[in-house]
């Protein structure tokens, strides 16, 4: 019987595909051919081999990965020795755990939906195993009842979700273990690194503007890491953090505030619109005006930012800083150096140089492309400016900054995101919105800070569409095999749900929980109190359910049956008689008569009346009832007399 059930067990969702296939195939083979159980020794060897394999591939140490892998592997291997009911149940139960471990990695909406499905499949398997016949799997009645069971668990799930004591950070969020791995802006930039991000449509963060005022697309420069160090190919950060940030904002510019919900990226970078006024709590604002989180962002992060929408920021500059920002290697990109000196001869003012450079990009046949030819010479800038002339934002930003430095203007690369998709009530910024632009420092001796940073986006002259319409509109051909406009649209729509999911579920953290408890007036919020409260609620629910079941299933007696029970209660003191009550009046009465001869007459009278009412008159008259009552009283008296006599 159990064997008939076993085929069901395999349809359970497991994620460990390679070995599973073999094991399941073997299990089916066994099932179909009724092979005898494998030898224990073989099983042990297989298990040990699997363990060694895991250690070999993932190394020693108690990490989340290794624990999960072992759990899944052993669950799958358990199938090899699943022959009894108990084993089958165990496998199904383990499947719940296996499904749950997936949450250690991500709590995304799609995943939750999938895990709900697998929880149902597992529950259904559990039910089918209990029905003990193989056909049960597809019976609609059984499917319905499994869904019912799952729905029954829903209130408890909600209760636990709301009330279970929460930790400040996830237990698995230890610094060396990240979420889904590092994604997004990396703090370094080399030709091709932004293109890589451009291929990725996953969300980077979501923005909700206060007052619903969304700036124009060309103002949406989401500032990330600022890169100052160039080795001829790759840009990287330099830590100016120790410097105090003294800035002044453009007086005419508009100030806006907005809320950002960041997807975990495994790094510390946070983003905000140029230029950020104040750092939110839990983050710091560097002298280069980029935000850095205090902790690695391994879970959804929310923060509130205030920005001044402007393309310039007044800031002082130390000579040390100025030197670093002018640095470029003299012996590289000689052609470009020559070009710059020609421009300087014509107009050496900062804006003159900037405009010359932008005009160069605009008029010399440059193309904005996400599939540029690789740059492999030592003189990357020369090669780009004179030869390939095709590139993505990182090529333009990088070249432009180097050109500015050659012209004696301090400049730096800013990485981040540009634009975003208006997705209903929020702005969705995707990884594909990643962007790089340039900032040039312009001296203004009249200003108390001595100068300002001017944002220059060389991409904008080559491809204004990128700037005004967003990254999605510059896609001319499919970036990857799976790249279709409808799919992008679907993903954006999906993100709307994900946004709400994040808002209501994923982001339900300690502080929100406490706020909830405050709202319903519970003051004690320590974990222990919560646990006690939870258990109490659970216990009470159990009591309610069981009482209800008891009430539903309790035997229900008719009036005449009540009379019989009343009669039996007269003999409660005599266990021998009382235990016979299920056999009915006619079996008990003779027994009583032989035991207590003095009761014979009243019992006989009661019996006549009782039997007639019960088995003859379905609707006894009041007179019948009275007679029965009368005989019962007489009998009761007689029984009392017997009791008295026996106690004497």
């Amino acid at each position: 019987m159990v064997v008939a059930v076993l085929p069901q067990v395999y349809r359970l969702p497991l994620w460990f595909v390679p070995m599973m296939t073999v094991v399941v195939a073997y299990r089916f083979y066994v099932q179909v051919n009724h092979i005898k159980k494998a030898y224990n020794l073989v099983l042990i060897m297989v298990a040990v081999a699997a363990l060694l394999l895991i250690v070999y591939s993932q190394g020693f140490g108690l990490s989340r990965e290794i624990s999960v892998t072992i759990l899944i592997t052993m669950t799958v291997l358990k199938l090899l020795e699943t022959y009894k009911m108990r084993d089958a149940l165990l496998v199904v139960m383990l499947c719940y755990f296996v499904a749950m471990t997936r949450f250690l990695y991500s709590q995304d909406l799609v995943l939750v939906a999938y895990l709900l499905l697998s929880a149902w499949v597992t529950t259904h398997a559990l039910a089918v195993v209990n029905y003990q016949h193989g056909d049960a799997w597809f019976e609609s009645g059984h499917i319905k009842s499994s869904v019912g069971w799952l729905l029954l668990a829903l209130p408890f799930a909600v209760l636990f979700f709301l009330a279970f004591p929460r930790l400040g950070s996830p237990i698995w969020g230890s610094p060396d273990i990240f979420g889904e791995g590092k994604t997004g802006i990396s703090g370094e930039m080399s030709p091709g690194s932004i293109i890589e991000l451009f291929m990725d449509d996953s969300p980077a963060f979501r923005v909700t503007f206060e007052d619903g005022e969304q700036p124009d697309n060309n103002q949406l420069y989401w500032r990330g890491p600022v890169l100052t160090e160039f080795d001829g190919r790759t840009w990287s950060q330099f830590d100016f953090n120790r410097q105090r940030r003294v800035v002044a904002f453009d007086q005419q510019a508009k100030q806006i505030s907005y809320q950002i919900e960041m997807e975990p990226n495994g790094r510390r970078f946070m983003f905000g619109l140029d230029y950020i006024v104040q750092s939110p709590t839990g983050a710091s604002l560097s002298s280069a005006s980029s935000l850095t989180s205090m902790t690695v962002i391994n879970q959804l992060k929310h923060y509130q930012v205030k920005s001044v929408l402007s393309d310039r920021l007044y800031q002082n500059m130390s000579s040390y800083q100025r030197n670093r920002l002018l640095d470029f290697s003299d012996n590289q990109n000689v052609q470009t150096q020559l070009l710059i000196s020609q421009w300087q001869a014509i107009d050496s003012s900062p804006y003159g140089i900037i405009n010359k450079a932008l005009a160069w990009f605009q008029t010399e046949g440059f193309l904005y492309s996400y599939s540029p030819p690789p740059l492999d010479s030592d003189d990357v800038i020369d090669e780009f400016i004179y030869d390939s002339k095709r590139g993505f934002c990182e090529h333009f930003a990088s070249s432009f900054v180097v050109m500015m430095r050659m012209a004696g203007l301090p400049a730096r690369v800013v990485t981040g995101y540009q634009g975003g998709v208006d997705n209903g009530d929020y702005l969705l910024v995707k990884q594909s919105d990643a962007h790089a632009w340039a900032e040039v420092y312009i001296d203004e001796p009249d200003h108390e800070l001595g100068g300002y940073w001017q944002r220059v986006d060389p991409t904008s002259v080559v491809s204004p569409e990128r700037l005004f319409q967003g990254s999605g509109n510059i896609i001319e051909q499919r970036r990857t095999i799976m790249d279709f406009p409808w799919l992008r649209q679907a993903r954006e729509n999906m993100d709307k749900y994900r946004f709400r999911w994040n808002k209501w579920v994923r982001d339900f953290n300690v502080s929100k929980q406490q706020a909830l408890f405050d709202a319903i007036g519970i003051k004690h919020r320590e974990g222990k109190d919560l646990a006690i409260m939870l258990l109490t609620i659970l216990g009470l629910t159990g009591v309610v359910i069981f009482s209800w079941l008891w009430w539903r299933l309790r035997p229900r007696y008719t009036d005449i049956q009540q009379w019989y029970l009343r009669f039996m209660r007269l003999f409660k003191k005599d266990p021998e008689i009382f235990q016979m009550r299920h056999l009915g009046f006619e079996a008990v009465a003779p027994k009583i008569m032989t035991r207590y001869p003095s009761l014979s007459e009243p019992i006989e009278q009661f019996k006549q009346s009782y039997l007639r009412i019960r088995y003859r008159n379905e609707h006894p008259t009041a007179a019948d009832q009275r007679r029965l009552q009368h005989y019962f009283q007489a009998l009761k008296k007689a029984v009392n007399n017997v009791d008295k006599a026996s106690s004497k």
Partner: protein
Amino acid sequence: MKKNQQASMKTSRHKQQISDIVDCVGERILDKETAIRQVIAALLAGGHVLLEDRPGLGKTTLAASIAQVFGLDYNRIQLTSDMMPSDVLGVSIYNTETQQFSYHKGPIFTQFLLADELNRATPKTQSALLEAMAESQVSMDGKTYPMEDVFFVMATQNPIDDSGTYALPHSQLDRFLISLSLGYPNEASERQIYSAAYLKSMKQSLPALSNAEQLLIWQQAVTEVHAADEVLDYLQWLVTQSRKHPHIQQGLSPRAGLGLFRMAQSLAFMDGRDFITPDDVTKGFYPVCRHRLLTDDGRLADEYIEDMLDSANLV
């Protein structure tokens, strides 16, 4: 109310009559009141009785006594292995005077038939008798000859392990309403059998306390005994239990269920009631089941019948 009282007057009168009959037979067959009551109940229910016992335990005496007190015509056939169906049913003989075949009725044409040692007869004879019994008529040469209005068969059977017997097939057994076994009397009663007074009384026949007309009225009255749904539920439950039981070869047939119902009605009637109670069903259950339920290794299912009755819920 008045009608009720009248009815109860009537019932108490026949109750007295029947209990007189039981007592009267009880003077002959000592210590067997239950068996006597069961046989009379079967008679009132219009069924037939199968008595299974060793020789010399009073089977014949019981039959004769009951026939006498009910004032019924009584025939006895001793069945043997060389008996032909015609020996039971009768035979057509060519009458040389009238130049025609005329039918000579066999011993089966009576009101009370004792078929002694039924299992000694060959299957052919057995089935001829049992068919006539079931249909209350005999068909011979294209003519049917009906039995008497009152027709009651009491067959006796030696235990099956005796040599030279033909065990009745299950289908034939089902035609008997009840089956019972008298068994030995208790010591005191047996001692009384050897007394001079008893032996003297044996020589006289019992008085006829009733007659065939009265019996027909009673038989009709039995069919009118009321059964509450609750009691029928219990009866149905018992029948179902017999079919579900893991150690019983074959459960009760609907015919057996109906027989149990009639038997319960009859027992209630004898008790002076115009309605049956679960106790009537309980009392009738064993004799109705005794010859019908066999364990999977071919024994009587007495212990299981007991279990079924005990597991009932009659609160």
